[in-house]
Structure formats: C-alpha cells, structure tokens
C-alpha cells in the first residue's frame, strides 16, 4: 500500500493530495506532526527524509521527497490518459517545468508569508508579500491571455497539468499570509476551475466551489 507522509495543514502536501484524489489512487496517510510536535525532526523521520520535510511518498519502495517530484512520479506512473504530465510532448514538458518553477517561487513567497502570519515562522514578511504580488500579477496576465485564446490552464493543450496543482495551494491560501487576490480576477477564475476538477478535495483554509452545471 502506498504511504504518504503528510501533515493536515501542510500547503506542500496539498498538491499531492489533490493529484491522489483526482487519479483516485488508493493510499494510506501517515501524519507527521510538524507543529508543535516537530515530528519531522525525529530520527525516524530524518531517516526517511534527511531534509525533514513533508510530503514524502513511499510507493512500495520508491521513496520520493518534494511535492513536485511526487507529482511527476504519480502522473507518469498512474495517469492512464497521460494528460497530467504528457511525457510524449517536449514543448508541454518544458512548459510544465517552467510553471513548476513558478509554483516553487509562490511557495517561497506566499507560502512563507502564510507560515509567518499563522505559525510565526521568521521571514522577511514585506519581501514575501511583495514577491507574491509580483508573481500574482504576472500570473493574472498570463491566465487572462490564455482565456482569450480559449485556454483554461497554466499550460496550453486543453487539460490541467501538474503545474496547475503545484501552483494552486500557495495561491488559494494566500490570504493567510495577508495577500489578497482581489486584484487578480483571472487568477480567481482559474481557482474556481481547479476547484471544479473531478476528484478535487479541500484542506483547512479552502472552500469548495459550487457546481458549474445546471441551469
């Protein structure tokens, strides 16, 4: 049975939880209490991940740390449609990698602001918020023009990819770090679209969207 080492309030674990839900992959979760228990710093966990971070995936001996690595593995191995991480398309793989890099910057800025404001983790809070707004501005422009071309996701091609899942958590939780999304209407619409993906799951801090069908 696949094991996910995770923590309920972890924004880094969330993209993995999202993909596991969307691909309906059976797994068990071993909760590692980051706060206040600092269980990630215990010897047994450092043995699994010397960087003392969650999430970690153990798929029958394949052990991966870092959310993006886990996303790539799960998509490559378990996505029968091969749309979350289409290994056959070099341009798409490049685009996904670019936006995974962008998502990482969002974690370092908006994610750091959230940890600072909620759990008092030391950071340069002004730099974190300014950095997050700069990224959100770039993202809003990108998504707006994507919409104008009939595209709904970070990368072209008509399907969401793991890049969307990687970017979503720091964005949807941005208000916890004092970062409002009011000035980014295209980002707000994209967040609704992510929430409506089949198999979407919430985490504390995230509201479900209403359905977008019927009438």
């Amino acid at each position, binding site marked *: 049975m696949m094991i996910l080492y995770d923590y309920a309030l972890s924004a880094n674990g969330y993209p993995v939880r999202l993909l596991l839900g969307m691909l309906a992959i059976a797994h068990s979760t071993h909760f590692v209490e980051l706060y206040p228990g600092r269980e990630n710093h215990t010897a047994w966990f450092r043995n699994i991940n010397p960087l003392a971070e969650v999430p970690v995936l153990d798929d029958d001996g394949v052990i991966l740390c870092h959310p993006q690595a886990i996303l790539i593995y799960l998509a490559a191995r378990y996505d029968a449609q091969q749309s979350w991480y289409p290994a056959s398309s070099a341009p798409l793989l490049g685009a996904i990698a670019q936006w995974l890099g962008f998502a990482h910057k969002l974690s370092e800025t908006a994610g750091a602001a959230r940890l600072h404001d909620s759990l008092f983790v030391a950071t340069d809070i002004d730099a974190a918020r300014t950095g997050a707004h700069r990224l959100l501005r770039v993202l809003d*422009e990108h998504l*707006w*023009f994507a*919409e*104008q*071309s009939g595209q709904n996701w970070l990368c072209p091609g008509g399907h969401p990819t793991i890049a969307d899942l990687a970017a979503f958590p720091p964005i949807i939780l941005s208000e916890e770090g004092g970062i409002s*999304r*009011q*000035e980014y*209407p295209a980002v*707000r*619409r994209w967040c*609704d679209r992510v929430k409506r993906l089949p198999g979407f799951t919430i985490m504390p801090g995230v*509201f479900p*969207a*209403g*359905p*977008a069908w*019927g*009438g």
Partner: protein
Amino acid sequence: MSGAPDVMWYPVAASHDLPFRHVFHARLLDQELAVWRADDGFINIWQNRCLHRGVRLSIGINDGRELKCQYHGWRYANRTAGCTYIPAHPDRAPARTITNRVFPCVERYGLIWSALETPEGEPASGLSLDENPLVLRGIAVRAPSGTVSRALQDFHTGATVFVQPTDRAGCVIRGLISPAPEAAKRLETLRHYNDMFSALRDTAEQAA
C-alpha cells in the same frame, strides 16, 4: 466629467469577468462589491458582506439563482437581494428586512457599470461608441485614480479609456477599442494595449 464621484457611473468589471456561476470581487470608492450573474442573465451588485456576521459574499457560492454565504449557509435571492433561507431556523421565513444593500448596474460596451448612488442618465453617454467594442484587459494600478487619469491624458492611445477608482490609493484602467479591430488583429491589439497600460502603471506606481 462633472458631478460628485458617488453619483457617477464607473466600470467595475468587464462582462467576461462574470463567467458561469462565478462571484466577482470588485471595489469602487472604498466600497467592496460582490458582483454575480444569475442564470437568467441578471447581474447583481451587492455590498460585499453578509448581513448576518459580515463575511464577504465574494467568497460565497453562486448557484445560478441564489448566493449562499460560506459561514452559515444563508441564501440571498437573485434580483431582490433578499434573504430566502436561514438554515439554523429552516422552518421560518427570514425577516424581509434582511436584504442586501444593492448598487445600480448597467451592462454596456462589454463592461459592467455601477455607482455608489444611482446617477441620472446612462454610463458613457455622450461618447459615440460601437455597441460591441473590443474590451481590453483591466489593469489594476496601485496609484490614485487622479494621477493615472492625468498620465493617460498624455497618451494618444486610440482607445477610449475609463479609470475606475477602487480606493484612495488604487484604480483600474479599463479601455475599449471602438470599432473593434478585425478578428485577425484581436490578440495583438489586446497585447499592445496591455503592454502600454502596464508600462504606464509601472511608472505611476514608482512615483506613488
């Protein structure tokens, strides 16, 4: 333009900002607004706080007929803005006084216009515009609307530009191209003005 700002029409969103079952978060002259289109096409512009305990309606759920607040599930009806259902007391009709403050709404030229108090006349009257111009991307600027309006006067853009004052320190530049360019030129026109107004924004923000 003459008249007090409170009684003037301003664009607060573009029509394309209101896709199916979305709630748009707008700001006008320090007033937060929740803007949503019902399934029957009617556009509601409401004060952005649930009357119960003040939670923003812009995070609520638009189910096509009602807006549901995330906190206690209170529901408010399309058009009337009245509360229709209070789950904590499911067998009682909510008091009629529980009705959201609404703001006027006109959808014209691909923009959604509103005001803090209903002005006389129509938005952008006196301008001869095509009914279906090309609506440019709205550019949020963290500089006062007066500063941005003055900076725009120096531009001969070929666009009809409106400046929406969101609060004392910010605004949104909303432009139209009338008549709309041919389809083949649409994207490059959008890019061109996006880049132009973004550059103006960067200059205004550095000075602010």
